[in-house]
């Protein structure tokens, strides 16, 4: 057997504890996927809102319905996390904040910042 195939494999997701930087990274992917799935519907809704006054009214009513309010909140968190984590990654690309201490602190800031802003958003939106 090839040596690389004999390496131990440990993939028990319930017992793996990731550092906060990894959590921010995987949530950046997950939130990106959420936003990608929502994007075609968001564009369609935007086009509807610009069509005429009736279309605008229809779009407003769709957005105001309870299930979409909840979904909107989830997507709001997704957008906030994706935006903040993305800005952090852009800084890392520019060699800003790459030391372990600062990188961990900024990751925690992104994680909590997106959650706190989402709670604020919920207060306005729900």
């Amino acid at each position, binding site marked *: 057997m090839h040596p690389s195939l004999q390496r131990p494999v440990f993939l028990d997701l319930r017992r793996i504890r990731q550092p906060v930087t990894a959590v921010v990274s995987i949530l950046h*992917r997950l939130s*990106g*996927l959420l*936003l*990608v799935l929502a*994007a*075609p519907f968001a*564009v*369609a809704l*935007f*086009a*509807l*809102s*610009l*069509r*005429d*006054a009736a279309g*605008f*009214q229809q779009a407003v009513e769709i957005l105001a319905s309870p299930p979409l309010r909840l979904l909107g909140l989830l997507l709001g968190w997704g*957008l906030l996390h994706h*935006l903040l984590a*993305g*800005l952090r990654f*852009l800084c890392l*690309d520019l060699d800003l904040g790459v030391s372990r201490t600062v990188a961990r602190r900024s990751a925690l800031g992104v994680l909590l910042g997106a959650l706190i802003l989402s709670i604020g958003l919920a207060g306005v939106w729900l």
Partner: protein
Amino acid sequence: MSWRAASGLRPWLLQRLSAVYLAAYLLFSVVVWVGGVADFHHWQAWFAQPLVNAASLLFLVALLGHAWVGTRDILMDYVKPVGWRFALLSLFGLAFLISLGLGLRGLLQVGA
């Protein structure tokens, strides 16, 4: 170094440039709309302004380009069977193209 030789550099750069534009447009939109939307005419008149219309068209293109590169990255990482990868890439590509058409039509209608 040619772009072709630097395989992967072009989408990498596209992802970052579009990200900066998307973030700037979104922050600007929050400032504009934080007080709420009065009515349809207010909404339509805003997007009918040539500069806003052009900026929004660019936002639409940047958004769907960004979505495409991100989707492609994720599918290449997790979906290994070629058939599935091709099918999913086609599905998302088609959805983004239809979105582009819808958004273009909406914006050009009010901008024209």
